């Protein structure tokens, strides 16, 4: 069984606007018959038990895109994907709104599941974005602290 695997160019975007997760996923499967698995992950803004008014996402323009592209490239080297899309928003995001999208397409499910999991783990620890919380009681926002569990999640992929 010899199958020519064409190089995949990942779609990477950092934007203020919202995204359409279903439409982004469809782009990776439309018009092709070799895609057997499509995994979409959407990260949403939580209201933190009603306390949160909004998250403000600061990013490093230029490096944010570059780092996401580097991580997408690593995922493509590691798994036989047929398509990969990463969209990350910045600016003010309210509870219930979407923050981040990863879509991985592959012939088989394991690669699509693992690649999207890997991308989210590394995106959280390596992509230059920072969250600030604005609370409903009007208190001035405070920066969200990095969680050690996120680093542990990313380390799982190095130990393998």
């Amino acid at each position, binding site marked *: 069984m010899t199958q020519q695997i064409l190089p995949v160019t990942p779609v990477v975007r950092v934007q203020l606007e919202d995204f359409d997760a279903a439409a982004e996923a469809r782009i990776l499967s439309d018009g092709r018959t070799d895609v057997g698995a499509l995994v979409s992950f959407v*990260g949403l803004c939580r209201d933190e038990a009603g306390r949160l008014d909004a998250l403000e*996402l*600061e*990013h*490093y323009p*230029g*490096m944010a895109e*570059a*780092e996401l592209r580097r991580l997408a490239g690593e995922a493509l080297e590691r798994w036989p994907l047929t398509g990969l899309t990463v969209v*990350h928003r910045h600016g003010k995001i309210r509870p219930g709104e979407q*923050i*981040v999208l990863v879509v991985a397409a592959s012939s088989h499910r394991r690669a699509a599941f693992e690649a999207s999991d890997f991308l*989210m783990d590394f*995106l*959280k*620890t*390596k*992509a*230059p*974005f*920072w*969250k*600030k919380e604005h609370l409903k009681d009007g208190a001035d926002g405070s*920066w*969200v*602290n*990095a969680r050690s569990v*996120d680093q542990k999640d990313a380390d799982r992929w190095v130990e393998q």
Partner: protein
Amino acid sequence: MQIKYFASIRERVGRNDETRELPRSITTVADLLDHLSAEDESYAIAFADRETLRAALDQEHVELDAPLGAAREIALFPPMTGG
């Protein structure tokens, strides 16, 4: 060299970015941090906890002991919290 600050580091330093001519004695990221810290207390406070300080040279992550080399841009920021 252009120096950019983000998130809590930006707030503590009190500016988004600045451009500086660096003395030849400054060869690593840590040298630059020491140099700025000696100059003003706002830098000293912003860079006090090196464990939670991250740096990028020309938009790539580096360790704090990395040589500045021919980089044109350095960015200093806290651990990232995107996603």
